[in-house]
């Protein structure tokens, strides 16, 4: 409905005048027009009172209006001490600017031109510490909803002329400002063109957040795996731009999206670069182990207990049978029941206010878990496994990937119940084949595993010391490959030199 109405309006635009715009605006009650009349002239001032900052209006604009020596709009503009101001003639520009919080000043009933002065109300919040991607070390700044502030946060970190920004408007209704950022001379032109073209082709009417935009421009929109990374940390964006990636920001969204990316990048956190490389490497390996554990532990439990009782070590056998002897359900129902409970707790915890959420998590986790074991609905071994698997799935630094991992366990569990170990292996195989076929902005998703690029392994499953990372990742095809001169970095000195 709205779309069609807008379309109609847009066709009408050709012959519409500035006056029509004002008439249209006047249908809203928060649009006001005042008249300032002196002897020689009559200025009218029009604005949305909900969009502008009244203090600035009173302080900077109104005094100039009442001054008698301002006779024309041009002379008015020279008086006003606000930077963003101009004379416009097109109704389209007028509509756009007034909706952004500009004050319009014009003469007469049916003006041919109009002065607009920026006076928008800044209702955004201040830059605050990151919440989703919290890290102990490193900068404590996160993006906010204003794209200009966000670009400012990045520019401060990359004071380069080559950091270039291309802006576009996406969404027929929302007209969201989207800024594409890249470092000229580093970025691969193909990647940049891909992302620009895809953003330009988006025809969805509303863009609420950059993450929804990221989904629309993914290579394979049917895949459960995220193919672009969302982040709320400006220094992460700065760091990937310096590697030669492309990022974009959407106005109103406190997250930047960048690509191309690979599967392993989702498991690397920026903190890995703040910690010594030995620790960072161990933590990264721990994360990969956590993913494997999270995805495979419950399915393997189900598979072993349903089909492959031969596998159970003799010393564990009594424990396992004893813990299951009172359970009326087959392992699959038991596992699904517990997994769903955990997911419920997690979802409820996310929806509730932080403090209540924590309480729910603890109380729900302990009470429900304990009670279901005592009631004989689940075995305590499974409870341990499921709780550990849930814990492990939280170690993934990127939220989107964490969700993916939460979800892909369920097909694994079902297949384990139907085909045992063969089912789990089959699911693993299907997942791997799917990952092999995925691309991110046309670059292989499984890199550096496949295609095998061993030079990229330095910063994949492990994080080697910085002086070994003398070149940028190969898969980005950066136009300038070297980070620093390796031969100088590794110059050998004799003992007594």
């Amino acid at each position: 409905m709205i779309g069609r109405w807008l379309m109609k309006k847009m066709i009408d635009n050709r012959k519409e005048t500035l006056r029509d715009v004002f008439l249209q605006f006047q249908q809203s009650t928060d649009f006001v027009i005042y008249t300032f009349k002196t002897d020689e002239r009559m200025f009218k001032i029009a604005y949305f009172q909900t969009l502008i900052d009244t203090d600035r209006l009173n302080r900077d604009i109104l005094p100039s209006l009442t001054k008698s020596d301002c006779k024309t709009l041009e002379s008015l503009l020279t008086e006003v001490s606000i930077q963003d101001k101009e004379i416009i003639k097109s109704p389209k520009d007028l509509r756009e600017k007034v909706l952004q919080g500009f004050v319009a000043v014009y003469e007469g009933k049916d003006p041919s031109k109009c002065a607009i002065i920026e006076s928008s109300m800044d209702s955004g919040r201040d830059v605050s510490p990151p919440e989703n991607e919290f890290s102990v070390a490193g900068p404590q700044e996160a993006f906010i909803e204003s794209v200009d502030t966000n670009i400012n946060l990045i520019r401060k970190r990359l004071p380069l002329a080559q950091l270039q920004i291309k802006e576009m408007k996406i969404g027929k209704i929302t007209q969201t400002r989207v800024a594409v950022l890249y470092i000229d001379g580093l970025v691969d032109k193909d990647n940049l063109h891909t992302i620009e073209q895809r953003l330009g082709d988006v025809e969805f009417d509303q863009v609420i957040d950059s993450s929804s935009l990221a989904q629309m421009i993914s290579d394979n929109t049917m895949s459960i795996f995220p193919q672009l990374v969302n982040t709320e940390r400006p220094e992460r964006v700065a760091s990937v731009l310096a590697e030669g990636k492309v990022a974009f920001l959407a106005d109103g969204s406190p997250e930047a999206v960048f690509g191309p990316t690979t599967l392993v990048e989702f498991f690397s956190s920026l903190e890995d670069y703040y910690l010594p490389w030995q620790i960072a490497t161990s933590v990264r390996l721990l994360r990969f182990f956590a993913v494997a554990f999270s995805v495979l532990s419950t399915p393997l439990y189900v598979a072993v207990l349903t089909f492959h009782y031969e596998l159970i070590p003799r010393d564990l056998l009594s424990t396992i049978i004893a813990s299951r002897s009172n359970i009326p359900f087959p392992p699959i129902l038991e596992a699904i029941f517990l997994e769903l409970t955990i997911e419920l707790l997690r979802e409820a915890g996310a929806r509730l206010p932080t403090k209540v959420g924590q309480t729910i998590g603890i109380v729900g986790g302990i009470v429900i878990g304990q009670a279901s074991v005592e009631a004989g609905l689940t075995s305590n071994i499974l409870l341990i496994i499921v709780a550990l698997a849930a814990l492990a799935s939280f170690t993934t630094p990127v939220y989107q990937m964490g969700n993916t991992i939460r979800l892909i366990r369920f097909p694994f569990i079902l297949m384990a119940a139907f085909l045992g170990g063969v089912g789990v292996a089959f699911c693993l195989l299907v997942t791997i084949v799917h990952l092999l076929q995925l691309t991110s902005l046309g670059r292989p998703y499984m890199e550096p595993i496949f295609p095998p690029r061993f030079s990229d392994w330095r910063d994949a499953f492990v994080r080697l010391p910085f002086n070994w990372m003398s070149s940028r990742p190969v898969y980005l095809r950066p136009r300038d490959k070297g980070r620093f001169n390796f031969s100088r970095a590794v110059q050998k000195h004799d003992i007594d030199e």
Partner: protein
Amino acid sequence: MDKPIKEQYLVSGFLTLFLIHGMQVGVGVLGFQRDVVKVAGYDAWISVLIAGMVVHVVIACMYTLLKRVDGDLISIHHQIFGKWVGNVICFFVSIYFVAKAVNVLRTYIEVVQVWMFPDLPTWSIAIVASFFFYYVVAGGFRSVVGLTFLGVMIPVAFVPMLLLPLEFANFINMLPILKHSIVELLLGAKDTTLSFIGFESLLLYYPFLKNRDLTQKWAQLGALITNVAYTVIMVVSLAFFSEDQLNKTIWATLTLYKVVQLPFLERFEYIGVSMWMFLITPNIALALWAASRCAKRISGMNQRSALVIAIVIMAVVIILLPTRQEVNQFSNWVAQTGFYFVFVYIPLLVILQTIALKIRRGKHEQTTNL
């Protein structure tokens, strides 16, 4: 006449190593010991080495053929036999690859049925596998190569497991060396055919390799890794089993895994059978890819449709092989065909190609002289 493959579909030359090795190691390795030992006794490992060396020679032959024509098997056949005869022969090659896929998949289903699920219906797995392989092969050659690469890299973790049975090794079994005659050793080598063939798909994917002239070293290295792996498995089996015991053991490699005991795992072979899927899927996927590619090249049909036909044939044949005897019969048939195709026909092709080139050059010279 043959249009070159687009740059973006080419794969790195060194992946030839994985393509050769991954295609060779499949379901044959689960139980090749018995067949060889029946003929060559406890000198079976020498037979394996002999077969391995012949593989190196055949790979060299294939590179000779391919380099001369800089195309694939179809170009070679066209060059030697002309269009019509060449196409007919290639049609049989295509069928051969489908048969190979059938053999691998059906044998794997057989292993799963014996080892884990006696009541698993063959046809259901056949249908599920058909969908899966369509998904894999329709992803293109790169997808198949990726699967092959990971299908080699992931099971590498199981190689050390094969050394654990050495706890019960009795190497004296193998002494004295060379108790058997050369003829017996060669016959034993022939019986390893089923485990070694598969690398002949190189004849079809050769145009998809980057710097293809330089890939021979990788191909030879891949075959070498296979040879070493097979010889090690054979030596371990010979040291582990006594002769009559080995003759009673159908899947000797799996029985080897049976004694592997880890603190958290009482029996390893169940994991082994499940994860063996990672070894066999590249086999089947590459065979299906080769079959459909071959069909596309001879008939000009869409490779996707050729793939669907190949997969349907595969599924139907698998469902038509319900019992162990029929599976064995089919395996023997594939092994025989494979033996004559790979170890007899390909070297023969080199000679035929040389003659064909000579004649053509002769004709050319005649025409220029005139």
